[in-house]
């Protein structure tokens, strides 16, 4: 009799505890989903115009919009165009072209990349993401390398 009673009690406890957990979970799940933002639906652009031919000086660089992210376009001393995503691979700052050292520099923690985007000194752990450059009419077009 005693035995049956306690096992019945613990059965009811499990039922209550389990029910409570389920109710709590059904409250929490939508809240957690709500708090994490939806994935952006805006597609990355295929190709954008980063500037006009003839607009830049030799040995200079500029930031352009690659969709919602910044890109860096460089017109080298030799008259070549190079383009990269401008997001530093260290902690997300935006890099800049330095014409004094002909390199790419991140002011946040003094990181340097060469003109091929390779990390050469300071904390950046990886090269910058490189972009394709091609000329179309008088636009300097930039696209992702696929």
């Amino acid at each position, binding site marked *: 009799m005693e035995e049956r009673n306690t096992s019945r009690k613990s059965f009811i406890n499990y039922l209550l505890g389990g029910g409570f957990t389920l109710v709590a979970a059904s409250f929490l799940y939508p809240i957690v989903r709500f708090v994490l*933002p939806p994935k952006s639906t805006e597609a990355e652009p295929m190709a954008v115009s980063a500037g006009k031919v003839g607009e830049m000086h030799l040995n200079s660089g500029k930031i352009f919009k690659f969709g919602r992210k910044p890109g860096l376009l460089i017109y080298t001393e030799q008259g070549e165009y190079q383009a990269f995503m401008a997001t530093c691979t260290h902690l997300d700052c*935006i890099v800049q072209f330095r014409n004094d050292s002909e390199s790419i520099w*991140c*002011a946040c923690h003094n990181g340097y990349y060469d003109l091929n985007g390779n990390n050469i000194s300071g904390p950046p752990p990886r090269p910058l993401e490189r972009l394709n450059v091609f000329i179309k009419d008088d636009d300097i077009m930039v696209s992702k390398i696929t």
Partner: protein
Amino acid sequence: MKTYTTNLINWLDKRYNIKEIIGFITEKKVPIYKHTIWYYMGGITLLFFIIQVLTGILLLLYYRPTPEEAFESVQFIMTQVHYGWLIRSIHSWSANLMILFAFIHMFSVLLLKSYRPPRELTWVTGVLLMYISLAFGFTGYLLPWNELSFFATKVGTDIAGVIPFIGKFIIRFLRGGEDVTGATLTRLFGFHVAVLPGVIIVILVIHLLMVQRQGMSKPIGLKEVKKGMLFFPDFFLRDLLGWLFAVGILAALAAIFPWELGQKADPFSSAPEGIAPEWYFLFMFQTLKFFPARILILDGEVIAVFIFAALGIFWILIPFLDTKARREQKSPIFTTIGIFAILYVGIITILSYFVFK
């Protein structure tokens, strides 16, 4: 007058039994000895917090949390609103002083070993208050949406990304997306003016009730402090005097060195030189840089972040780990840990300004 108050007290006492509480407070004593001065530090921290609540509510009357308007609204506060520059300057200065005094308060409690039984939970709630204050500072920093705070927030939130598995989730949670954008501003604003105030009030009240209930601790070995003063009115009045002094210093700093606004943030321009978090994050930030990029097969930053997380938990658990102090014995190990922590944080912070840059 006298009879009105007595009547009111009697009226309340019939219903809520408040004479018990009044009796408790009027008999409470604060020990007097050479370290009594440290008992004022928590009170000063509390004062600065109250000032934050008041000035924060005032700023809310004009501040607008969107990337298009945030910078302009702070500019408006500073140039058009009567005494707006002063209110903003006080909010910024008092934020820094609040954190400074929270540090002083915490380290003095650590060295006096006031955390030993029965006050373990006072320490635990105190450390939580410290962490929440840091969160206040971090979330508030972005709100003016200037260049410095924009990039510092990019860096600060990106550090979370090094945590394995959940790092990406934490970044998205903090930023409200992949990048620091208007979504981040709105989110951190919500934390700053709604979530954190709600949480801190609850913990602060618990912290203060515990202190009032248990009274001030006496350091180990000084069991027989003979002298004492009544908490009310003696200590309370001295507290007020300290507050007056602190308010004076705050007003002078805020008026003589108005807080700067800087340049508006532009998510499509290169980071300028001189990006740095607020001073109270510098020691962590600098430590991160001491770690090499790779340690064996692991990322140096991952290890650094884990060490900091472990230290953060260790700090909360100190009252339970300091077994000597629990037995009312001197515990030189924890004194050494405390002094080392003070020196490390102090020296690295100062060096960050002058040497590391």
